[in-house]
C-alpha cells in the first residue's frame, strides 16, 4: 500500500473544506453588497419578513413556554440541594434571555426557515427559474438572497424578544402554581434582577443567528444539485449547517460578551 495515501486523503479533504469556506465567504460578501446597494425589492423583503418572522411566532412561542416551565422545575430541584430555592425567578430570567431564548429559538427557526428557503431556491434552481431571472435582467442574489437574509437578520431578534417574554411567563406559571411562589414577588424578582445587557446580548445573538440561517438556506439552495435529489440534499445541508453554525457562533458570542 502506498504510504502517502492517508496524507493525500487528508490533504484532499482539507483543500475541499478550504474551497467550500472560500465559496461561502464570497457568497457572504456578495450578499452584504446586495443588501447595501440599490435597487432594493421592498415587496420581497416584506414577504420574507412575514414568512420568516410572523409565521415562526407559534413555534418559537411553544418552544419558549415549555423551556421556561421546565427550567423553573429544574432550578427549583437543583437549588433545593443547597437551600437556595428563592433564586428560581432570577435564574429562569437570565437563562432564558442570555442562552435558551436565542439558541432554542434560533434552532427552531433554522429547522423551519433554512429548510424552506433552501427548498424554495433549490427548486427554482433546478427548474431554471434562477436562470430565467437572469434573462429578465434581475440579479438572483439581489432578488432572492438579499431580502431573505436582511429580513431574517431583522426579525429573528424580535422573535427572540417574544420568546424571552413567553419563556419567563412559562417559568412564572410553574413557579406560582406548582412551586408556591408569590405572584408579585416572582415578577419583581425577575425584573429587578434583569439587566439590559442580559436581554440585549440575546437579541444580538438572535440577529447573528437569523443572518446565518437565511444565508445557509440561500447558499445551499443556490448551489443545489440537479433534480429532486439535489434539492433534498440542499435542504439537509442547509439545516445541518445553520444549526451547527448557531451553536458554534453562540459559544463564540458568549465568550466575547461574558467571558472574562
Amino acid at each position, binding site marked *: 500500500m502506498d504510504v502517502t495515501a492517508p496524507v493525500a486523503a487528508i490533504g484532499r479533504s482539507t483543500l475541499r473544506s478550504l474551497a467550500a469556506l472560500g465559496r461561502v465567504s464570497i457568497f457572504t460578501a456578495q450578499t452584504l453588497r446586495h443588501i447595501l446597494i440599490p435597487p432594493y425589492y421592498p415587496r420581497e423583503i416584506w414577504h420574507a419578513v412575514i414568512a420568516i418572522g410572523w409565521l415562526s411566532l407559534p413555534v418559537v412561542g411553544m418552544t419558549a413556554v415549555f423551556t421556561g416551565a421546565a427550567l423553573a422545575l429544574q432550578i427549583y430541584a437543583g437549588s433545593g440541594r443547597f437551600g437556595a430555592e428563592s433564586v428560581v425567578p432570577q435564574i429562569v430570567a437570565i437563562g432564558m434571555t442570555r442562552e435558551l431564548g436565542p439558541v432554542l429559538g434560533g434552532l427552531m427557526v433554522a429547522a423551519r426557515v433554512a429548510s424552506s428557503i433552501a427548498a424554495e431556491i433549490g427548486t427554482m434552481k433546478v427548474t431554471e427559474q434562477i*436562470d430565467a431571472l*437572469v434573462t429578465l435582467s434581475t440579479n438572483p442574489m439581489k432578488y432572492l438572497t438579499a431580502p431573505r437574509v436582511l429580513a431574517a437578520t431583522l426579525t429573528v431578534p424580535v422573535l427572540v424578544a417574544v420568546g424571552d417574554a413567553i419563556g419567563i411567563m412559562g417559568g412564572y406559571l410553574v413557579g406560582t402554581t406548582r412551586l408556591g411562589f408569590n405572584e408579585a414577588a416572582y415578577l419583581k424578582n425577575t425584573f429587578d434582577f434583569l439587566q439590559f445587557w442580559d436581554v440585549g446580548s440575546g437579541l444580538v445573538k438572535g440577529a447573528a443567528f437569523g443572518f446565518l440561517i437565511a444565508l445557509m438556506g440561500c447558499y445551499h439552495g443556490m448551489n443545489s444539485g440537479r433534480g429532486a435529489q439535489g434539492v433534498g440534499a440542499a435542504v439537509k445541508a442547509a439545516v445541518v449547517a445553520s444549526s451547527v453554525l448557531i451553536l458554534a457562533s453562540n459559544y463564540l458570542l458568549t465568550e466575547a460578551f461574558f467571558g472574562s
Partner: protein
Amino acid sequence: MIELRDVHKSFGDHAVLRGVNLTIPKGESMVIIGGSGTGKSVTLKSVLGLVKPDSGTILVDGEDVEKAHRDTFLSHFGMLFQGGALFDSMTVWENVAFRLLRGSLKRPKAEAREIAIDKLRRVGLRSKVADQFPAELSGGMQKRVGLARAIAADPQIIFFDEPTTGLDPIMSGVINDLIREIVVEMGATAMTITHDMTSVRAIADKVAMLHDGVIQWTGPVGEMDAADDPYLRQFITGSAEGPIEAVR
C-alpha cells in the same frame, strides 16, 4: 449580430461543445436543429453566460459578452426556456409582466397587466388564465405563458428553446406565425431550437445543425432540402438508418 467562435464546453469528462462556430446576423431568424442531448440548450445558455464556456469567444454586436456588456445585452432580450421556467410563486400575468413591474422598464400595475393580457392573447391564451398560477395550467399552456413572458417587453434579441414542443398542431402553427411575425415586424434577431421540421420551415431564415459538438451544416433554409450532407439528410427525413447513431 451574435457570433460564436470556437466555443468549447465540457461537463466533467463529457465534452458537449467541441468548437462551435456560428454567426447570426441582426434581424435574422436562426434555427438550430440536432439530436436530443447534443448541446443545443447549452449553446443558448453559453451566449447568456448562464453556462460558462471553457474556451472560445462569444460576441454580441461585436462586443465580447464575457465583459460588462451582458447587462445591456440582457436589457433588450427575451428567452423562452425549454421547461417554461415560470415563477410558481406568482400568477400568470405577474410572470408575463415581470420586467414591466420592476427595474428600468417599470410602469403602473394596471398598464403592465394590460400588456400582459395582450401578450397572452397573442400566444392563444384567454384573459381568464391571467390570474391563475402556473401550476394550474397544462404543460403546453405553461410553455405559451413562457413565450408571452419572453416577448412581453418587445425585445430585440429572442431565444426560443423548443417553442412548439408539447403543443397541438394548430397551436404550433399559431406560435410559428407569431415568431415569424416578431422577426419580420419588429426586426428582432431570433435563435430558435426545435425538433419540429414544420416549424423549421415556417420560422427559419437560416438553419444550423449541431452534431457531435460542432455545427455540422449551416445555410439558408431554402438550401436545406437540396443539401447533400448525410447527417442533415438523415435528420430531415427522420430515418433510423444513417451516420447518426440512434443510441447516444
